[in-house]
């Protein structure tokens, strides 16, 4: 079953395209689709944020990014949450 994942940088007034505040992925496969954001618990969990934006909510901007860019954001969030000793 083919699975397509599209990644998005989450940007708000306290972040930027160069340093996004978060990352969201839209996973589409034969059964349907689901959006997941990388959460403060350092796990991917369901998020309604992009659906809200598609409905006209203006709280966050969502910019499509590559998987590598998404991985960099995830790594930065992990570093912030788990500072190296």
């Amino acid at each position, binding site marked *: 079953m083919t699975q397509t994942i599209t990644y998005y940088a989450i940007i*708000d*007034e306290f972040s930027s395209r160069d340093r996004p*505040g*978060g990352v969201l992925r839209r996973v589409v496969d034969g059964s349907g*689709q689901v959006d997941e954001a990388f959460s*403060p618990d350092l796990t991917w969990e369901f998020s309604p944020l992009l659906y809200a934006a598609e409905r006209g909510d*203006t*709280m966050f901007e969502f910019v499509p990014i590559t998987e590598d860019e998404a991985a960099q954001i995830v790594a930065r969030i992990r570093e912030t949450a788990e500072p190296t000793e």
Partner: protein
Amino acid sequence: MPVDRPDPADDPDEPGHRRRPDDPQIPDAAPPLPLDQANRVTVHHANRAEVEQVYAAHQQSARGDAPIVTADADPPSDSRDEALASLRAAWEQHQDRYPERERAIPQTHTDGSWSSGEARRLTPEQNSEAAKACSDIHDEGERIVLPAMRQIEAADPNRGLVGLERRLKGEDRLKEKISDALRGRPGLTPTQALNIVPDPVRFTFTYSPDRYADGVLADVERLKEIGLEEVKLKNLWSDEQYKGINSQWRRPETGLRVEVQFHTPASLEAKELTHRAYERIRNTDTSPTERNELEAFQRRVNAQLDTPPGIAEIPDFPEK
């Protein structure tokens, strides 16, 4: 104080509030109007009657009493009525296939924390801060913003505010939104999240299609003239899931955010017709399969809409 309820949740798109007899009179806005006072009142009343007809039809159809009809300067047609009837039937079929699930009930716990379902939670400190902010927002929205918006409304009798009963986001909906933001955006503080919720106070203007583009541009200028700072404007008429223009404004004195949506009667009708679908889409318990079908339904509803002329002349802000 009119405040929205969690069900239906988030949109200022429920059948339109009409001005109450004891509401204060609205001062005319500064720009000269093309009609004399008597004609303005007549046209304004006619416009309101048309919009009220739309919302009365919405209320009836929502109860299953009658089919949806359209009004205003976008006259009903047999084909459009048939299309809407078909869409309503499609939604009913969807509800048959996927029965309504029990909705999460927001609650404050004995330790002062707050939750709505399994996923949405606020700590006692976050909950307290959100509750205080909500009270302040509602006060400022009623005392400052509402009179200003009514002044803007009075400047043009050819369109009006609708859904005023939902101008203030309910406290639980505000908390849900903050919780969603904190879960999806690591590092955001509760105070920051509170400060960037775009629609704690929100208004919707509707225009006939032929007056839509000019009307929106004029009202954007009026919003600036009353001292609001434009934060964002999104022209979503080329989107598939939702059509209209949504804008976010800020009061520089306090930072209060105000959302203003711009619709035609038909696009507002589409938004209302898809409201429950949207509620399900953003529910964590909705299956991926159903979510696909819900998005297809929203696409289908919005594909029925005619784009008002002149839409291309309304750019996003900030421009992309």
